[in-house]
């Protein structure tokens, strides 16, 4: 994708959400005169996929919302928006979390990695991605980004997991198609234990 286009779109997004912010600030000042001082600032510098990006974030905004609708990172899917499926799994400081059940402000000091941020600088796929292709792990693919992120988190913490360990670590990701066996094969392949 053309980087300029992306940036322009981003700037447009910031302006649009800034306007929304202005209107909601008005609402707050009208209704919340006695609120304690010290509520969070809206403008954040978010470290996403190794890049620091300035983004306007509502106080109550979830990370999934920011990623998908403000930063255009639509690889992170919303399956349930309630922490019940795992499709929105991303990494925060190498730990896998549900982006739908995390406020963006909660990760303002953490390094967020999404499925779009896994490729090496030269464009090579992450070993988990390559292994998932090799094993034909995804079926419909809607849960795949989350599965990839949980596998990446697992292999960072435990580079040679047993199949049982992998199953436990991946267990917060539902696959409605039932491709669990294939994802586990992918994890075992990515960790060099299957060839």
């Amino acid at each position: 994708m053309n980087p300029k286009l992306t940036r322009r779109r981003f700037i447009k997004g910031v302006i649009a959400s800034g306007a929304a912010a202005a209107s909601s600030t008005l609402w707050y000042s009208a209704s919340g005169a006695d609120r304690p001082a010290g509520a969070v600032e809206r403008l954040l510098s978010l470290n996403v996929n190794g890049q620091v990006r300035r983004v306007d974030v509502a106080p109550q905004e979830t990370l999934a919302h920011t990623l998908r609708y403000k930063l255009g990172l639509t690889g992170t899917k919303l399956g349930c928006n309630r922490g019940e499926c795992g499709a929105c799994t991303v990494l925060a400081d190498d730990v896998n979390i549900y982006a739908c059940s995390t406020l963006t402000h909660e990760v303002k000091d953490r390094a967020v990695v999404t499925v779009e941020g896994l490729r090496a600088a030269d464009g090579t796929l992450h070993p988990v991605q390559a292994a998932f292709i090799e094993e034909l792990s995804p079926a419909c693919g809607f849960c795949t980004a989350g599965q990839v992120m949980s596998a990446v988190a697992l292999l960072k913490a435990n580079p040679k997991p047993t199949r049982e360990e992998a199953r436990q670590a991946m267990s917060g990701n539902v696959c409605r198609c039932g491709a669990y066996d294939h994802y586990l094969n992918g994890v075992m392949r990515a960790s060099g234990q299957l060839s």
Partner: protein
Amino acid sequence: MSSHDNMPEMSLYQPVRVEDAIGIASQFAERGWLVGGGQDTYGWLKDRAKTADALIDLKGIESMRGIKETADGIEIGALVTLTEITRNALIKERYSLLAQAAGRVASPQIRNVGTLAGNVSQDVRCWYYRRGLNCYRAGGNLCYADTPEGMNREHAIFNASRCVAVTPSDTGPALVALEAQMVIQNASGQRVVPAEEFFVGPNVDIRHTTVLRPGDILTAVRIPAKWANAQFYFEKVADRNVWDFALVSISAAMRVNNGVIEDSRIMVGAVQATPRRLTSVEQAIRGKPRNESTANGLGNLASSDANPLNYNHFKMPLMDNLVKRAVRGQA
């Protein structure tokens, strides 16, 4: 009926000191919402089944983190995540009961952010209540689950008082078994409440599951040395092995000397609104060998005074069986 999906507009505070958090929480009172891991927060708010004006994110408070050894046991910061508990060497070595319980909560991602304080303070899972209906617990006049035709498979078999919801916490019963002390701070200072008294049933307070009140912050959990390295048994039976809340769980701690049970604490989760302590079982096994015959001798002592609803009779034998396992020490 609209199906909501967006977080409602609200303000967010991220204090870094407990005192500041207490100040903000006191000012907002009922309209403030404390957030640890937030895993039992965002669903309520997205569904509009509960509302608040402000979120008070406690995660920046360093003093509420960490697991440290004290003169009498350990102190676990309220913000310690369930994953940290399952991996902590000290807890695994001395209080493996808690580590096991924490390891069976929800899913890995939820354990990665969910805190101990959040796990014990979470609200009940009754589906009628979660749907946002105006039941007793929501301040209404009736219970939809406790009726001849209500869908109450997951509900209480003991100590229901209008509301028949059960405690969903896996770590709660373990903490009561370990005689943990809950450290609570508010504007007027600090108080320490035994875990057993931390949880409250609907007979006393139908709107809340714990003694925590607006302005209170659970800052730490202390576990005394009393049950360190005791013999433990934990098991959670749920439909699915991930996400699902316990149908019945058991957390038991026993002091066994020469094969004889000198003292024990047997707790059951998900059978009533609070962790249920089985004092009758504790008495019955005192002085007896920890073995199959002691376990079988209990019969249905644990469930004998249960008052099941239409669809949850199965919890009675399930609970009796888990008690037997705990007493004999193996599945």
